[in-house]
């Protein structure tokens, strides 16, 4: 049985989410507290940090901005340029880049920035996708590791200490750059922030012919290297009001392309457009925890008062957690091909990761699926 937040539609199976005695989740409470924030003061704090790291003589970039070309990173780059900074944008190529994702990367460059794209070996990446899916039910495991390691490695390589991240989804925290002293990122901070589901990069060496030399892009620099450059970082979402939809509007007005329809498994057309594997990633979240991308988005919009909880539930019940037959128009079969995996092998991995307590089953214990392979949750709201 799932218990849902009484304000939004998030179930209590989401790890790290707490509910208070009123039955309201910690993410809703955290959003309520944001209304009390003095954003002018935060903006001033941001300016002080940026001034500290700005290259005074133009001999180097002012900061690294990790970008995907999505709505949030497009917005981040626009803001950095408005503040007069000269960022070096760094992209870690997604596992299965879509054509709209490529268009948006090209658009981001056209904002007028220097840009570096780091593309780890795709054959090794496909092995990592398969291992991640098989062992921890996360096809995107290598991508999530690379998003954090690659910009940090770039900071060392280009000798640029400040990394400007977007939103910190985990807590309300400005990032280490705000600390008056001792603000250098260390490996431990990065590992906690990165969230690796109990599978570590070193655990992969020796599996399927993977050697240490294949994993350089996925490896954090040493603490000595981090200290040499003084690598530090901040979360822009701590200093500027952060809203995915307004970021999307601003990005769109600056050339960002949205998808032609609502993205499969989602409820909007303006995010998660750059990787065909994202549908699988989100589906596994649904199997393990009973919520998918539509739930995440409905919660964000309910908190901001754009839709009611009733509307959110209706949307989630119709769109969330559908079997990922395609994503951004690419078929599941084609998405699995580089992983050397068939759809039926994929289905058995899905079943093995499904939390059977939250889905309807037959008397013999088997999961009930409709003709499209979709599951039905035992309860879609509090009873």
């Amino acid at each position, binding site marked *: 049985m799932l218990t849902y937040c009484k304000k939004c539609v998030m179930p209590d199976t989401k*790890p790290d989410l707490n509910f208070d005695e009123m039955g309201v989740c910690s993410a809703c409470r955290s959003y309520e507290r944001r209304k009390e924030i003095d954003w002018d003061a935060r903006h001033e704090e941001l300016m002080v940090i940026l001034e500290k790291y700005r290259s005074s003589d133009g001999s180097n970039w002012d900061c690294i901005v990790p970008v995907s070309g999505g709505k949030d990173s497009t917005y981040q780059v626009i803001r950095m340029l408005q503040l007069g900074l000269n960022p070096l944008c760094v992209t870690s190529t997604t596992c299965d880049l879509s054509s709209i994702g490529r268009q948006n990367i090209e658009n981001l460059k056209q904002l007028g920035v220097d840009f570096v794209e780091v593309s780890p070996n795709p054959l090794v990446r496909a092995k990592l996708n398969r291992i991640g899916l098989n062992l921890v039910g996360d096809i995107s495991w290598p991508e999530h590791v690379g998003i954090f390691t690659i910009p940090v490695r770039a900071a060392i390589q280009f000798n640029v200490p400040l990394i400007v991240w977007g939103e910190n989804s985990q807590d309300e925290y400005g990032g280490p750059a705000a600390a008056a002293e001792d603000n250098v990122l260390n490996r*431990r901070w990065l*590992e906690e922030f990165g969230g690796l589901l*109990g599978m570590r990069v070193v655990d992969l060496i020796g599996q399927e012919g993977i050697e240490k030399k294949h994993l350089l892009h996925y490896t954090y620099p040493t603490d000595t290297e981090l200290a040499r450059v003084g690598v530090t970082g901040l979360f822009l979402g701590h200093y500027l009001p952060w809203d995915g939809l307004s970021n999307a509007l601003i990005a769109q007005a600056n050339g960002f392309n949205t998808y032609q329809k609502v993205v499969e498994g989602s409820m909007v057309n303006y995010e998660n457009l750059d990787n065909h594997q994202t549908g699988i990633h989100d589906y596994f979240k649904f199997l*393990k925890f009973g919520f998918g991308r539509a739930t995440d988005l409905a919660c964000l919009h309910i908190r901001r008062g754009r839709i009611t909880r009733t509307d959110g539930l209706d949307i989630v019940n119709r769109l969330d957690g559908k079997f990922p037959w395609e994503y951004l128009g690419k078929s599941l079969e084609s998405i699995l091909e580089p992983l050397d995996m068939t759809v039926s092998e994929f289905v058995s991995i899905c079943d093995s990761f499904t939390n059977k*307590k939250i889905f309807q089953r037959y008397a013999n214990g088997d999961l009930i699926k409709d003709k499209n392979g979709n599951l039905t949750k035992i309860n879609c709201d509090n009873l």
Partner: protein
Amino acid sequence: MKVGIIDYGVGNLGSIARALESLGVTPVLVDNAMNLHTQDRLILPGVGNFTDCMHLLDKGGWTSALREEVITHNRPLLGICLGMQLLADSSTEGANDAEHGTKGLGLVHGRVMHLSKLGCNFRIPHVGWNSVSSTSGDNHLFQRIPDGTDFYFVHSYVFVAQKNCDVLATTDYGTPVAAAVGNGLVWGTQFHPEKSSRAGIQLLSNFLTGPIC
């Protein structure tokens, strides 16, 4: 009440601190073994590899300080995930000496070994929600938590206690797995209470309101 989270150089402190804050407690991150005695209750987190963590505990003077606080001063201690495994006498994880393993804190007698060595044929690591049953009815740590409640696990190694009575709760993952251990005022949970929603918060609350000595 002062609750200290032992900050010996591994991650996972943020989510534990946030969970305690939801109980109205502001935890202190104790980063010097000399300051352990200033806290009323201690939480030992752990992420990564047993041998690496023991190395950090030894190097920072934590091993002897923790043993003194617990054994001599009866300071209540809760180890979480790898933090629970560190309470054991030894572990084979990352050990140079595969036969004897790496020495642990020795606060709850037992050995830590890989799930596969216990005959588990399930996929390793064990990641996700799994139901936990308390082994006895009068266990303070599991008060007001119904038998069979789900908790969130992420691990590949397991604690094999020397004495059955030190196993406070079990879960099943192709083989019975110690989900919580305890000896006197030392407790450990293999699962992450800080990631386990209401039941996890209840367990942390039970630890905070538990007997002192």
